[in-house]
């Protein structure tokens, strides 16, 4: 990535990555609704792509269920399709293909095939889009074996994540939070984002760890991902400034298969864990993380894992109602207090 005077926004980084991917590999084809120029996609992530590669960018009927299957067929026959699903909520229309096809072909055909496709889709609320255009549904994919779910945050190298997804032999569901598109990316510089020290794991879809104490005196760990990261960092800052509680924050980018090495390493230092996600609470990523961490590190935890998530209900359209439904900075602060002990 080149350093520019103006910090790059999420949509620009993803768009640049798509152009670079198309230039590098001629087996990549992008399919989606309204992706052609001059419109360039509902969130403009594909801007300029169809002008540059008219034969490789296909605007499609409004047929999400089929699009997943079409991409699977292409991937079975050696192409690298990228499907753009305009709103993550519409992944529900393609779930049969995910559950009964895309995720199964490789294993049930005894490794005779691979299904290297990427589904890119925006998830997340806080734009007033209401109950069916605001959800964070990655948890629906959490229990599907043999797929990969990747979520980018504003501190990740989102272009590198997308490139890794296209190069991956597995089916990858690539979650782009809607707010990320318009926000300036905050990549670590000299190991820091602002005043926080940052570590990045070496995985293809790395976890980022943030600490205000240089990872020395933190007394709780907060694990999150995607669009929740800025909110959690705000909470961590408030905890430092107003409560003198130091937390490590971990932003995962690989949600499935779940890889918690960075979390376990942190919990071994801090002895307590909060999970924070924007999706609804029940059956969410926090539940799975809590089960795994409690099984692996029970003796190191001084309190039960606390979960922060949206209430189990719809995401209303009106701003105040939406805010009331979604997890807040205060919810994260309260969850850290609920851990008791050194961090209370």
């Amino acid at each position, binding site marked *: 990535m080149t350093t520019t005077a103006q910090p790059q926004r999420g949509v620009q980084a993803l768009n640049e990555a798509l152009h670079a991917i198309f230039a590098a590999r001629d087996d990549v*084809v992008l399919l989606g609704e309204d992706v052609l120029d001059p419109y360039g996609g509902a969130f403009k992530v594909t801007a300029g792509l169809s002008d540059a590669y008219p034969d490789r960018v*296909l605007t*499609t*009927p409004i*047929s999400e*269920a*089929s*699009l*997943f*299957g*079409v*991409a*699977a*067929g*292409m*991937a*079975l*026959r*050696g*192409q690298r*399709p990228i499907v753009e699903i305009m709103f993550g909520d519409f992944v529900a229309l393609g779930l*049969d*293909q995910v559950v*009964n*096809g895309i995720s*199964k*072909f490789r*294993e*049930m*055909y*005894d490794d*005779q*095939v691979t299904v290297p496709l990427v589904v890119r889709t925006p998830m997340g609320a806080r734009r007033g889009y209401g109950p069916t255009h605001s959800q964070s549904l990655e948890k629906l994919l959490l229990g599907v074996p043999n797929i990969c779910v990747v979520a980018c945050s504003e501190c990740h190298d989102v272009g590198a994540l997308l490139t890794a997804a296209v190069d991956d032999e597995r089916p990858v569901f690539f979650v782009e939070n809607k707010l990320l598109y318009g926000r300036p990316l905050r990549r670590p510089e000299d190991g820091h984002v602002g005043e926080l020290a940052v570590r990045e794991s070496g995985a293809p879809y790395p976890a980022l760890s943030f600490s205000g104490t240089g990872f020395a005196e933190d007394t709780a760990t907060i694990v999150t991902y995607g669009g929740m990261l800025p909110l959690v960092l705000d909470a961590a800052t408030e905890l430092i400034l107003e409560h003198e509680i130091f937390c490590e924050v971990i932003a995962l980018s690989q949600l499935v298969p779940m890889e918690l090495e960075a979390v376990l390493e942190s919990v071994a230092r801090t002895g307590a864990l909060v999970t924070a996600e924007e999706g609804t609470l029940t059956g969410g990523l926090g539940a799975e993380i809590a089960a795994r961490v409690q099984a692996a590190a029970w003796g190191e935890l001084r309190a039960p894992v606390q979960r922060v998530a949206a209430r189990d209900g719809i995401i209303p359209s009106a701003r105040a109602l939406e805010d009331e439904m979604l997890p807040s900075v205060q919810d994260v602060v309260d969850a850290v207090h609920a851990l008791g002990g050194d961090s209370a």
Partner: protein
Amino acid sequence: MGDLASFYERMFFIRRFEETLLDLFSLGKLVGTTHTYIGQEANAVGLIDHLEPERDVIFSNHRCHGHYLAFTDDAFGLLCEVMGKAPGVCGGKGGSQHLCKGNFYSNGVLGSIVPVATGIALAEKRKRTGAVSTVFLGDGTLGEGVTYESLNIASLWQLPVLFVVENNHYAQSTPVELELAGSIAARGAAFGIETEELDTTDVEEIHESAGRAIARVRETGAPLFLVLNTYRFSPHSKSDDQRDPAEIEERRAVDPLLVAGARLDEHERRAIEARSEQRLAETVEAADEAPAATPGVAA
């Protein structure tokens, strides 16, 4: 290209293979489920004779054994797969309705396979292989909405997909009159897809029409919707059959084996049947002796 004798041999073998599976179930040598192709053999044999296994692609459904045998001739791999044996074509992981070998695929959710076959056609078109992507549907599949999305896409993008609807007049136990409104052929035509319909169990007639259809898809690169009206004598899966026996008996008059067999010399026909029985017996014996699929052990 096959002749009548070879068609008869392939049909007879499929018939006896499927009957043998039902026998093996009764003997407790098979578990799970199977959906036999008994009565529909002329469709697979007549049509698939025109496909090139090295180039063309088939996506089949839960009732896939006939298609598989006609395309791959791999009876041992299929039988082992259904029996849960290690040399099964998918190592015993797929079983009866989830097969993959070369350019042949099948999956067990109706409708689900139709967009995948459409995507295969898109990939093959982009690669300029000249392949025809054939997908087998049934009257029951026409209840699944994703089928119509795929018809729209295949027509819109002019993809080389041959949609074959084998209308056997029953969706599991439900007669077509209770599950389907309107005309089947009109469904293809409504999307601007060239449509043909046959009402026969004569393998030579099916062979001729399917040959024209496949040549047409190959020549134009555009989809074609082929309706084959047919009938299955066997239950949907194993013993789930409440049809009127008189109805089944009436259809036996046009059993594809009878229709084709009547045109063969009696001695030739008996020789074919004896040869097939011999081959089947050897296949069953070999599969019976093959090791069971076990975790972590490759065949």
